[in-house]
């Protein structure tokens, strides 16, 4: 799972060139090609009345995006990188999926969803929909305006939250490839408080078992030359993963994404979606291999 090509999906206001520059650290792990994607959503070029759309609005939006992409591309070309671009009118998720398939991208980078709570409930979140329609890893990049940790090295200290699912194990394979750029990885499992019942001895036994499984994952990373440490937390996964990230001074949260149906996630929520959309930390979501 090497990242040779990444798709940088931007509406400009939520993801700028500084974010992309921070991701260029991935060149040390094999990144060669960046593809910019700007989707002009249909409602932005729709006429106020009637069925048509405004060609003039489309041209203006396309050219505005093109001007930014030319500027960014010149910078990357001059660094010896390969660059491509898509400026397309259509549905955001559908067009991103199409571009990712055409380009055979290894990673999709998106900004935090701008949809409101009600809109997300009925229309679903772009991130959730993307996760359900692609097996490609998705990095939800965020600006950390109030936090103090370094944005310029997003892969330096990741927290890998694992629930032993196939997607979580795929995340291990993905992170192994980043051995040149990860300084230390914290492997975290959040145990369900309700399952910790019985005597103190029984609870300690459960903790020991979890710790043993985390040690196995840490060993995989250490074999690859990546320093890793295990951590057991207890409670609500959403809150505890965020807490772990703070405790570890993490730069990134990495998780396998759930295989729950889209409508289930929309109504009941899921930890990967909640972390991706609400956490202060950039979040890398690894879907299961088979969708």
């Amino acid at each position: 799972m090497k990242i040779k090509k990444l798709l940088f999906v931007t509406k400009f206001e939520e993801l700028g060139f500084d974010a992309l520059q921070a991701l260029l650290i991935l060149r040390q792990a094999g990144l060669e090609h960046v593809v910019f994607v700007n989707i002009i959503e249909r409602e932005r070029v729709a006429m106020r009345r009637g069925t048509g759309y405004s060609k003039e609005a489309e041209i203006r939006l396309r050219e505005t995006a093109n001007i930014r992409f030319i500027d960014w591309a010149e910078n990357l070309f001059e660094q010896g990188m390969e660059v491509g671009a898509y400026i397309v009118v259509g549905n955001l998720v559908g067009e991103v999926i199409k571009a990712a398939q055409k380009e055979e991208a290894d990673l999709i980078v998106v900004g935090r969803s701008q949809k409101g709570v009600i809109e997300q409930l009925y229309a679903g979140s772009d991130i959730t929909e993307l996760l359900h329609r692609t097996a490609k890893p998705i990095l939800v990049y965020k600006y950390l305006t109030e936090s103090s940790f370094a944005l310029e090295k997003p892969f330096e200290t990741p927290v890998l939250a694992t629930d032993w699912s196939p997607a979580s194990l795929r995340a291990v394979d993905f992170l192994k490839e980043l051995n040149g750029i990860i300084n230390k990885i914290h492997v975290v499992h959040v145990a369900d408080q309700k399952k910790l019942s019985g005597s103190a001895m029984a609870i300690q036994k459960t903790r020991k078992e979890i710790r043993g499984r985390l040690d196995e994952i840490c060993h995989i990373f250490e074999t690859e030359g990546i320093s890793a440490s295990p951590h057991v937390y207890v409670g609500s996964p959403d809150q505890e993963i965020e807490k772990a990230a703070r405790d570890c001074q993490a730069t990134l949260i990495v998780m396998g994404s759930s295989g729950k149906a889209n409508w289930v996630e929309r109504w009941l929520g899921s930890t990967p979606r909640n972390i991706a959309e609400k956490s202060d930390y950039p979040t890398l979501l690894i879907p299961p291999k088979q969708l």
Partner: protein
Amino acid sequence: MGKKVLVVDDDPDVRLFNVTVLEENGYTALVATNGEEGKIMAKQEKPDLVILDVLMPRESGIRLYRELKTDKNLKHVPIIMLSGIAEKSFLRSQKVLAEFGDTPVPEPEAYLEKPVDAEELAATIKKIIG
């Protein structure tokens, strides 16, 4: 049949403009929509000239330019770069790639920054392939 000119550009408006200029001036236009397609067509058709954009999906004009200029059968095909990317950035990128160990390549026969008017394009083509 006029001389064959391959236009490689992802923008349909630019392709249409280039094809119109070529046909009005008696050339035969071939079109490709990205670098990858351009490479296949250049190998199949062996054009007399290539008009090449830089920023495109699948494969950029930077990479295709290198591939054409290092291909023993195609390196003598003249290339007009026609792009929004500045010539300075194009030349710097080629220099950086050569420093990374790629084969050095000559400068293109012409470099036109978009937008270009029909007369200028036609004159440049005529100057290179007659």
